[in-house]
């Protein structure tokens, strides 16, 4: 069974990747923008999935880290720095701030943590809005340049889409490696049972801080791509509702599932666009869809798949057992 499933999975993955590269070639400007946005939001949601889905720490501040990354990239690239340098700074900055934000997580859990991070998110928004000497205040920063990659200009939508897609690929591989490393296992141990994790010799302090810092750093990466994507940023997109949206993406896709953020971001970014033909009703329908999905499957879309697979596996296993048992009886 499993020997069969693996090539199938790899084949399916290759088809999806090829599709993501080839199909958008004849998309219009807006379609490419939405798809690039999907890639960027997936990166941010993957970061939150590490913090929330794997390490079990509720954070309502991921949108603030996207903002920190976006402002870092916008300020640096408009002053003539190359984008990769800006991304490095965005990572370092959000990692450091995320580490500090991890400290409350050592003291308080669950909803209290949600509210501390919620407050942080709003405070970050106030700083973006009020420190106009740095962030341009409510007028924001415009004319954010898009980078040259290996001498190729990415001003047009299609090349920049490939920049976003390529970054998503790099982040995906890094996260894939991370959750299979001892680190990822430590995160999961932390989520399942902090006390037992500690008794197994896992330094829960360090891993809690790390879970926040790494998750936030990915938010910073997403922000550093978001700024050149829109080429104009102001504080509004980074307010609390972005954090809530990202949280929704992670839960709706399936928290703690590797592919959850990909699907969640697809629902949150693409579904409203598909529903746009319903004019003013699209966000309402989107809200209803999310509620129905969560009532049906609180573990998100991948939770449905997971339950189905488990049920099938149990069925197969019990069938095998029955066969073995009947054989045993005939031998006797």
């Amino acid at each position: 069974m499993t020997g069969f499933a693996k090539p199938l999975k790899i084949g399916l993955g290759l088809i999806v990747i090829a599709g993501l590269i080839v199909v958008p070639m004849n998309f219009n400007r807006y379609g490419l923008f939405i798809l690039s946005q999907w890639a960027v939001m997936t990166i941010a949601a993957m970061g939150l999935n590490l913090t929330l889905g794997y390490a079990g720490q509720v954070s309502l501040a991921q949108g603030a880290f996207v903002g920190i990354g976006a402002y870092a990239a916008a300020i640096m690239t408009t002053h003539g720095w190359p984008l990769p340098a800006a991304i490095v700074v965005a990572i370092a900055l959000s990692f450091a701030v995320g580490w500090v934000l991890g400290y409350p997580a050592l003291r308080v859990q669950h909803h209290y943590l949600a509210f501390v991070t919620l407050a942080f998110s709003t405070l970050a928004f106030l700083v973006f809005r009020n420190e106009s000497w740095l962030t341009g205040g409510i007028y924001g920063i415009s004319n954010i340049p898009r980078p040259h990659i290996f001498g190729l200009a990415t001003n047009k939508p299609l090349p920049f889409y490939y920049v976003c897609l390529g970054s998503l690929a790099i982040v995906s591989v890094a996260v894939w490696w991370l959750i299979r490393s001892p680190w990822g296992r430590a995160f999961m141990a932390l989520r399942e049972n902090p006390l037992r994790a500690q008794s197994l010799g896992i330094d829960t302090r360090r891993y809690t801080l790390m879970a926040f810092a790494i998750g936030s750093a990915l938010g910073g990466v997403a922000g550093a791509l978001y700024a050149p994507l829109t080429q104009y940023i102001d504080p509004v997109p980074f307010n609390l509702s972005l954090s809530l949206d990202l949280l929704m993406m992670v839960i709706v896709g399936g928290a703690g599932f590797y592919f959850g953020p990909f699907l969640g971001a697809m629902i949150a970014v693409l579904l409203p666009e598909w529903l746009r033909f319903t004019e003013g009703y699209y966000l309402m329908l989107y809200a209803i869809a999310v509620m129905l999905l969560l009532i049906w499957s609180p573990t998100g879309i991948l939770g449905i798949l997971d339950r189905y697979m488990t049920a099938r596996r149990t069925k197969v296993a019990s069938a095998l057992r029955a066969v073995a048992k009947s054989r045993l009886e005939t031998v006797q």
Partner: protein
Amino acid sequence: MSNLFDLLVAGLATGAIYALVAVGFTLLWQTSQTINFAQGEFVMLPAFLMLAAMHAGAPFWLAIILGILLSMLLLGLAFKLLLVDPMMRHGVLPLAIATMALAIGIKEAVKQFFSAEASPFPSIVPTGDISLLGHAVSLQSIGVLVLAILAVFGLTTLLNRTSLGHQMQAAAQNPTVARIIGVPVERMILLTFLINAFLVALASLLITPIYLAKFSSGEVLGQAAFVAAIVGGFNQVRGAIAGGLLIGVLDNLAASYVSTQYRAAVPLIFLIVVILFRPQGLLGRAEERTV
């Protein structure tokens, strides 16, 4: 000095409304572990229900009654039966996310079916100033404060002095034991949802004349009520009341003594400090940590 007095009165008036909203929020948390992220939108909606009734030709008093009844039907009964009940056994987080989606839904519905513009809303308290201890104080602030205090007083009397209130508290504190001693726990939970719906409708009635009826007005209010509930004590009705008044006053003082730009930051920084040093809130009792 006179400035300070005015700020205090205005702060207490907004604080009293925060308290109303925060009390409902803590009631839902206590009885059913529901964090209602749509609580702000719950306050925004009843005003529009009342406006809709008035547009249909109902006089103001009838619109108020209809608005309160509809609010109890939609935000109390329907909210519990259609969203909370199917999701309760799945834990806190998915339900919290579902209420976020509900907040988006309510906001968009009001925008689509009513108006994206702010609408004026008649006040149940006459406007004007009265003289109090040598200060001119707005009659509206006083009226709001008095009505909110009456409502909160009525609620605490219900909870602490009546048999029904004791049953509600028992159901909230230990559902299993309450069930054994014969408390109809399910009915008590439903009652808290209805009370919450009544309180938000009342808050809506009091605050909308001041800030106008607007589809987006729930965001700020919801956040203020959360902050109030956490600061005062997530699991205590009196904590939510104290938190509401405190945040209202703090907010008003911050606006004139700190900077108007960072006014919103003061309650939040206060919130972070309180959570870090006293996670159960100023008046809350500590919950056992479930690992």
